[in-house]
């Protein structure tokens, strides 16, 4: 609790970000338990209703309640983003730590693979993987995770490399730690800060990419909505039923804002001079 206190003290952006993200987390939790309407119920009689009355945020072209879908979408979108960040962070950290710690041939081999991955625009890589793995939540998660892993690996590698030059790693070795225990006990805990920082920024990127994939028709398939998917499904009604585009768009924007604010605060908290790469 004291860490949270320290983190929030004097950080308006942290408090604001935390507040916003809590709102969306609550929405996600609420959406799993209760929604004003069935988010999947197709009701051709009530299609494209403007906001108001029974439908707080109106309905889409299938007569589904936008507000309910936003709530359920919160769960889906946040799950997908956080799981893909988890995939990226776990695999990227392991790979980056190995490359940075052992350097030499291991580094070069890993570097080649990572370079090949990183040179692929992540959206295009995801496009390929989604098409290959098949559409669905897990395809998207794997795709985004894999395409972000090199970024994490790169940062972890750089951190580990700079740590390698620090005396305490030598010192740990000199005390008889094996490579494995040096890596796990001494090196990795010091990567937490940069990984936490890049993790938040990746969360934002993941949310965006999921939406972009959905936009291109390669996202998470309906009926379970994600915000990106909702935007993609309803984008052609931007001219007539602007609420359909505004609601998920604002939800995405606000979440991004929250995450970016949190990310800045985290960066500030861990190391005021670190910047995202």
């Amino acid at each position, binding site marked *: 609790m004291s860490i949270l206190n320290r983190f929030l003290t004097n950080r308006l952006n942290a408090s604001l970000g935390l507040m916003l993200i809590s709102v969306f987390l609550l929405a996600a939790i609420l959406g799993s338990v209760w929604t004003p309407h069935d988010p*999947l119920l197709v009701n051709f009689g009530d299609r494209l209703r403007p906001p108001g009355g029974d439908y707080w945020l109106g309905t889409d072209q299938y007569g589904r309640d936008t507000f309910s879908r936003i709530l359920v979408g919160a769960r889906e979108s946040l799950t997908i983003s956080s799981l893909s960040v988890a995939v990226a962070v776990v695999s990227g950290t392991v790979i980056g730590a190995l490359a940075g710690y052992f350097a030499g041939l291991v580094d070069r081999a890993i570097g080649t693979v990572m370079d090949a991955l990183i040179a692929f625009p992540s959206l295009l890589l995801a496009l390929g993987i989604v098409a290959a793995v*098949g559409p669905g939540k897990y395809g998207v998660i794997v795709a985004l995770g894999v395409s972000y892993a090199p970024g994490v690996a790169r940062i972890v590698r750089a951190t580990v490399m700079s740590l390698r030059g620090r005396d305490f790693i030598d010192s740990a070795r000199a005390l008889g730690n094996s490579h494995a225990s040096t890596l796990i006990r001494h090196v990795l805990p010091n990567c937490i800060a940069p990984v936490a920082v890049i993790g938040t920024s990746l969360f934002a990127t993941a949310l965006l990419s999921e939406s972009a994939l959905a936009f291109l*028709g390669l996202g998470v398939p309906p009926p379970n909505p994600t915000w990106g998917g909702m935007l993609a499904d309803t984008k052609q009604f*931007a001219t007539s039923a602007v609420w359909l585009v505004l609601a998920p768009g604002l939800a995405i924007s606000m979440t991004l804002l929250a995450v970016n604010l949190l990310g800045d605060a985290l960066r500030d908290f861990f190391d005021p001079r670190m910047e995202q790469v």
Partner: protein
Amino acid sequence: MKKTLRYLATAAGLAMLVAPAGAQQVTLAMPGDIRSIDFGVNRDGNTDNVLHHVVEALVAYRDDLSVGPQLAESWDVSEDRRSYTFTVRKGAVFHNGQPVTAADVKWSWERLLADETGFLCQKWFKGGSLGIDIQTIEALDERRVRFTLAEPNGLFLVRMAHKVCLTGIIHPDSVGPDGKLAQLIATGPFTMGRHEAGQFVELNRFTDYVPLDAPKDGYAGSRETFLDSVRFMVIADTAAAKTALLAGDIDILPRLDPNAIAEIEAAEGLGVKTVATPEWQVALIQNTDPLLKDRRIRQAISHAIDIKGLTAGATNGLGQPNPSAIAGASAFFGPFFQEGLGYDPEKAKALLGEAGYDGRAIKLITNGTYPFDNISAIAIQSMLQQVGITTELVVMDWASQYAAYKEGKFQMMVMGFSARTDPTLMFDVVVDSKENRANAIADDPELIETVKKSGVSGDEAERALEFKKAHQLMVQDASVIGLFNPARSVGVNDRVEGYEEWPLESPRLWGVRAGG
């Protein structure tokens, strides 16, 4: 290349002479670029839509999907029904000014039938599955040409008019020294203009075009042209296309989403035209699947789907519910074909109980590309839920779904079949034995036999009976559940006059005028 340029220059010059003031242009959205000018060889729907303005076949479909005259003003069928003699339209000239002769027709056809050309539908006319086999093509005089078939076949003209395989007549100079099609010197009301890959294709008015002396009727009849040029804009994104129509950046938007009709109609200066099409929206059930091979379960699914409700919702009330392969627009259609197994949730539940359905989820494949597929799938899922059948929607990209369909690797799938002008052809799409082709769905032997008979027979009444039988068998088999014939709408700017939709819903820009 040089020749093309010079030709284009003169064409443009002529156009300027004829229409000196206020050149009339109409812009139309197209979801993808044309693949080539090599009609029938490297084509897709977009390519066909554009090239049908430039290249003409001897015959073409009318509004009622029967075959009518196009480059041929008339034809005779011999007693033995093996010979067809066509007379080339009077005054027809190629884009280079040369008159169209019977020899040109013969040359064009022989080119298409030659192996080197790579004409995709070569087998439709030479020893293919439906038994059409052209034996000889003779130029009888300047304007008459005779095709002789090995056996009589009722589908010959239907095939010849087919939109997908444009059997176009072109001038021999179109072909370059390497034997490949280098340019289109054809007979259509438009000539090829600028083509910016991925952006647009422009067609210019062919000023020497002499139209047929018959009213405009589908692709057939008069193709008299008033526009100086037509631009097909490539707009991949549906939302972008609609925006462009609203913004006035395009004049015509085919395949308007039914949900957007109200908005376009309400918009100032825009209108919507809607037409019923012979396309057929279906749910396919794989009867080799361990669960779905039980006919009772398939019938339960059929009973559970309220076709009327689904059609009304999915097409915004514009489509026609149709459980049969006979298009609502077809001459063979009648109330009989509107009868399916019938919407009956109780019956469905009973059948499921009988079959011992254990609630296993069925994967229902659909795609994000075609809105009718998507919305039908969503509605079907919702309806099946009501009788206790769990379905899991799998939304693929179109290519993946198509591969699954072709290989028969699926449990359930929602599909839309594009227009087939003859009922036999539509039945043929889904009916066959599974050994014969993997994408056959309904493989009841009696059904296969019935469909085959319906195609060979030349007698209309006899065919009608066969169709009825085939329909009944297919409904009972319940591997193919017909849903509806969709209606297609097109958004049109009010400044465009005379643009009309027809059941094949391919754009037709002849007979169209553009106001200021």
